[in-house]
């Protein structure tokens, strides 16, 4: 008998008990749907983390000014600018693992354009910053060494600032005022999105480091070269922790810290934080998929249950088929195909339900979801495997019946 003929017989047998078949299928439908939805939710979370790593700039280490112990009083982090521009140049020059080190000062201010104003963060940077952060302009140009050397009043705007001050018009060439100092907008930065902590990276205005110190943020009285942080780009991801150690060593040496003294700076390897987040979201995905798989397993048990009932109910039919020439394997195939048909139809409906569920979650809960085509293939194959696995025992039971007994069965 051809597989197609067997399948037709199976579909007919399933249609005899429509409600029963539908309920049995439901187990598989929910199982497959749950696997697809849960994997999509997990993959969405992973993609989000991956994007954050991307937006941070790859292989980024941030060195922040740290706490200072002064006369037994430990001041909090950032209370004093312990880092200097020279620290940044030293890092860049003396640590070969480092590709670029960009000193940065940061402050906050109201930015005014025409009758619009917007409170945002002001960052003073050197050209190395853009390389370290992998940050490009979408119009205009980046800041150059000449801007820093000449302390020009040039500014780059983040997307959020651009939107709030200029709405849809092009800001390049326009003049904005920061703390009453007029700045010419030379470029608009590409979108970066939020950091892991939910901070909007696009809500910023970037100006030359020198200008920031002289005109906007102001320089420390103690040290004109002090900066708030240094963004460091390491050459390769695998050198991250080595670079971190070398930076620490170098800075401790430069700051003349004794072994008993704490670091007066903080090194933040944000990629590492994100990577651990990614790992945990990957674990979450696996966990979700595993829980969803359990429902697929339960659906399979439902199939087995109903197939056992079916074999018992149709004992006489089996006996008759054997009497007219069906071999054991013909009967086995028939019931196996029936079970697999149930699970495959359930699988197809489940895929539909899974995609719908994914869409609903993305739409109503506004969670990031990502449907991986592989998860559909895997869920479908798993459904088929469940059909074969749980259909096999009832089918073998049917095939093993004695035709005489089966014909006599009441």
């Amino acid at each position, binding site marked *: *008998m051809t597989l197609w*003929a067997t399948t037709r017989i199976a579909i*007919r047998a399933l249609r*005899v008990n429509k409600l029963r078949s539908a309920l049995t299928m439901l187990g598989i439908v929910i199982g497959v749907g749950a696997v697809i939805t849960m994997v999509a939710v997990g993959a969405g979370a992973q993609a989000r983390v991956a994007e954050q790593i991307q937006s941070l700039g790859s292989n980024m280490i941030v060195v922040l000014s740290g706490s200072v112990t002064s006369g037994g009083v430990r001041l909090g982090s950032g209370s004093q600018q312990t880092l200097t521009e020279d620290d940044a140049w030293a890092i860049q020059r003396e640590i070969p693992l480092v590709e670029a080190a960009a000193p940065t000062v940061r402050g906050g201010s109201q930015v005014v354009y025409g009758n619009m104003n917007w409170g945002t963060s002001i960052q003073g940077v050197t050209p190395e910053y853009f390389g370290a952060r992998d940050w490009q302009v979408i119009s205009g140009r980046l800041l150059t060494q000449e801007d820093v050397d000449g302390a020009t009043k040039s500014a780059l705007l983040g997307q959020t600032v651009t939107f709030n001050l200029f709405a849809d018009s092009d800001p390049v060439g326009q003049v904005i005022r920061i703390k009453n100092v007029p700045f010419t907008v030379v470029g608009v930065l590409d979108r970066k999105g939020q950091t892991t902590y939910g901070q909007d990276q696009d809500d910023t205005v970037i100006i030359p480091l020198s200008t920031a110190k002289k005109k906007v943020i102001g320089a420390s009285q103690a040290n004109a070269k002090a900066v708030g942080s240094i963004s460091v780009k390491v050459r390769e991801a695998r050198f991250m922790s080595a670079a971190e150690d070398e930076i620490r060593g170098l800075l401790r040496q430069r700051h003349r810290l004794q072994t008993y003294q704490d670091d007066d700076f903080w090194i933040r390897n944000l990629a590492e934080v994100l990577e651990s987040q990614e790992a945990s979201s990957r674990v979450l995905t696996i966990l979700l998929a595993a829980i969803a798989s359990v429902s697929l397993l339960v659906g399979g048990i439902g199939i087995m249950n109903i197939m056992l009932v079916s074999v018992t109910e149709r004992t*006489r*039919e089996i*006996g*008759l*088929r*054997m*009497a*007219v*020439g*069906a*071999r*054991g*394997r*013909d009967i086995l195939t028939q019931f196996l195909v029936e079970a697999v048909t149930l699970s495959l139809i359930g699988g197809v409906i489940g895929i539909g339900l899974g995609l719908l569920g994914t869409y609903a979650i993305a739409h109503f809960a506004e969670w990031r979801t990502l449907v991986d085509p592989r998860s559909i293939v895997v869920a479908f194959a798993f459904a088929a495997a469940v059909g074969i696995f749980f259909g096999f025992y009832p089918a073998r039971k049917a095939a093993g019946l004695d*035709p*005489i007994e089966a*014909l006599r069965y009441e």
Partner: protein
Amino acid sequence: MADLLIETDRLVKDYHLGTRRVHALRGVSVSVHAGEFLAVMGPSGSGKSTFMNLLGCLDTPTAGRYRLDGVDVSAMKPDELAHIRNQKIGFVFQTFNLLARTTALENVELPLLYSQTAARDRRDRAHAKLAAVGLSEREHHHPAQLSGGQQQRVAIARALINEPVLILADEPTGALDTRTSVEIMALFQDLNRDGITVVVVTHEPDVARYAGRVLSFRDGLVTKDEPQTDLVDARRLLATLPHDYEQDEEETP
């Protein structure tokens, strides 16, 4: 002999019922020629059903040999027996054993599903056999929409579909009224006249009267094996029976 269709040699069949051993057949040697009409009689427990199961290749003997159509089938494996049943034997049961919710035509086709027959061919042959038993008009009816006699005729058409050498009928009229029973027996006699060997298992002497040879079983042995002395022609008997209004449409061709 060349035309010996059934040849059993001291067939023995034992069953185990718990720890007890039941001797269902204790050495049965029977020869049946092609074209015979044989009735197998005996009370329940006489071994006639066991004999029938062995003849039908549904079971294998504990000892002894059975040759069907020149082939020794007594030591065959289940799959080989299934093939023999499919090709050489047509079964007719007391309770018809038709598949519910399946049309008459598809019921008749069933054995062909297990003999690699093309769909078109299956349909044509089922068509022809249903016509042969006078049910062309009922091809697309389900068993539930047919009378008992009609159902049994569908079953007979199914038994004939693979052109078997042997028709085995187990109490074929057990569930039918008198007139319908005679009609069914008339059908068997027609088939037998066309050359098909028919074996009918029954405990009703009335049914045995249509067979040319009667085999009686008791306690697992053949006690009598004699030609029918009082052979009845079912078709002539039918002419004398009053017509039942319900059965009018069932006139055999």
